[in-house]
């Protein structure tokens, strides 16, 4: 198993961000090392998605630093980030509904000029059901299958860092398990992942490290399994949720 090295892939320091006049994030610090699976957990509205959107430059009103492989990226446009190796699976259904499954996947490689055939096979290998339905418009797929398309598309970027925003939201238990299994597989094969999850118990169990976010501020940070045993966290976030 490839496990965390010392190389820092992503480093967020002192990040504050606003929607209009409302400050959502307050001096957030966070980092992800090469090969790690890191989770961000926290209640609804804590600002988890906002952090990912900040990494992707979708939010413009902000302050602080975001470094990817030592390079400052806070000034970059969303469309430049795929090129340097960051991919995101946004929250909610994020496929292109009118494009076919295969078009959805291929367009993930939009910024690449190398051969993508092998990567396409790799994605079909991971999600065989997509291969069967490759020529159908993505809108005809079930929620879980659409989530596979989104994940597959993000893999076509050939990312060095994958951001996942609630990848199992609204899926059936068996589909949740399947998606989690794929996430573990991807991480074990060396992909660095930063994931936002509602399912705190599951994500703490899987993660090397996790950040607990509350009202846009860092609240706790630690090894996933340590946080899982932490009384305060059990009390706040794990009460009863399986």
């Amino acid at each position, binding site marked *: 198993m490839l496990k965390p090295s010392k190389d820092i892939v992503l480093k967020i320091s002192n990040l504050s961000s606003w929607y209009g006049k409302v400050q959502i994030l307050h001096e957030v610090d966070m980092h992800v090392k090469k090969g790690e699976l890191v989770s961000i957990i926290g209640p609804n509205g804590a600002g988890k998605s906002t952090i990912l959107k900040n990494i*992707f430059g*979708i939010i413009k009103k902000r302050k602080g630093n975001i470094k990817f492989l030592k390079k400052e990226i806070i000034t970059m*446009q*969303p*469309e*430049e*980030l*795929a*090129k340097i190796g960051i*991919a*995101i699976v*946004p*929250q*909610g*259904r*994020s496929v*292109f*509904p*009118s*494009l076919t499954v295969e*078009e959805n996947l*291929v*367009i*993930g490689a*939009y*910024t690449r000029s190398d051969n993508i055939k092998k990567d396409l096979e790799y994605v079909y290998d991971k999600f065989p059901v997509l291969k069967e339905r490759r020529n159908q418009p993505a*809108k005809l797929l079930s929620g879980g299958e659409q989530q596979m398309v989104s994940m597959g*598309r*993000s893999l076509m*970027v050939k990312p060095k860092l994958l951001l996942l*925003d609630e990848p199992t939201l609204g899926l059936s238990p068996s589909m949740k398990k399947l998606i989690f299994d794929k996430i573990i597989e991807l991480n074990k094969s060396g992909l660095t992942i930063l994931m936002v999850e509602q399912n705190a118990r599951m994500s703490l169990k899987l993660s090397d490290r996790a950040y607990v976010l509350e009202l846009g501020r860092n609240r706790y940070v630690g090894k996933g399994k340590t946080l899982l045993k932490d009384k305060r966290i059990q009390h706040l976030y794990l009460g009863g949720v399986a």
Partner: protein
Amino acid sequence: MSIAAQLIANGLIAGSIYALVALGYTMVYGILKFINFAHGEIFMMGAYIGWTLHVLWGVPLLIAFPVAMICCGAFGYFLEKIAYKPLRNAPVWAPLITAIGVSIFLQSLAILIYGAQVKTFRTGEVAQGLHILGAIITPIQLTIIIVSTVLMVLLWLFVKKTKIGKAMRAVADNREVASTIGINVNKVISVVFVIGSALAAAGGILVGMEQNLTPTMGVSVGIKAFTATIVGGIGSIPGAVLGGLAIGLIENIGIWFIPSGYKDAIAFIILLLMLIFKPTGILGRKKEEDVRG
């Protein structure tokens, strides 16, 4: 000659022009959720540029035609960059007002340069009509059908097969997600304006070849093409083509039933009925498809 065949032929000829113009409305709307009300005037501009090149300066039509398309494409590019882009985050009415302003400006400009009286491409007498399936079709009308069909097939291939065409559809589906996979949304918007304007220009010259040019010729075609866009489902490319043909057919077959003086009112009535009863159009997207994360 049968009257039915003739009306259908006339309908298809008018319809293919509406379709060409409707494509610009629908592509821009699909991506920006904005109706470019200056689009009819780009159609008019295309006709006048074609006329200037061909009739005034004697440039062969085969060259004047694409040059007018390119000029209008370039105009569409700068129109978006200068007039609309700065208003991207402004309230929705701001670009609409701007578009109406641009359209009044272009009409006035045309009056200033060309005067209000009509211009025509015709030089000699009208060519002999061809008998096709019971209808009489002039060579110019045949040209209209062939050229517009070719342009629409090319557009379809562009959108389906090319990388930037696929990016266009992706941006129309979900702009934010499209940007995260590296699609330059601004570039796609520019491409859409260029193509839409060039198609409108083509429509303008084709109409100009058959009818007279007036500075306000873009208004009624603009409204009919807009109606076609709504009928077909705004945002849908096949919808714009279907809608255009439908409007052309309905208004031409309609004069069988009502006095032909009311022909131009037909599109208005359809527009009104569509907006009341089926604003999503025939091929329009359903609301639930419009999911944003």
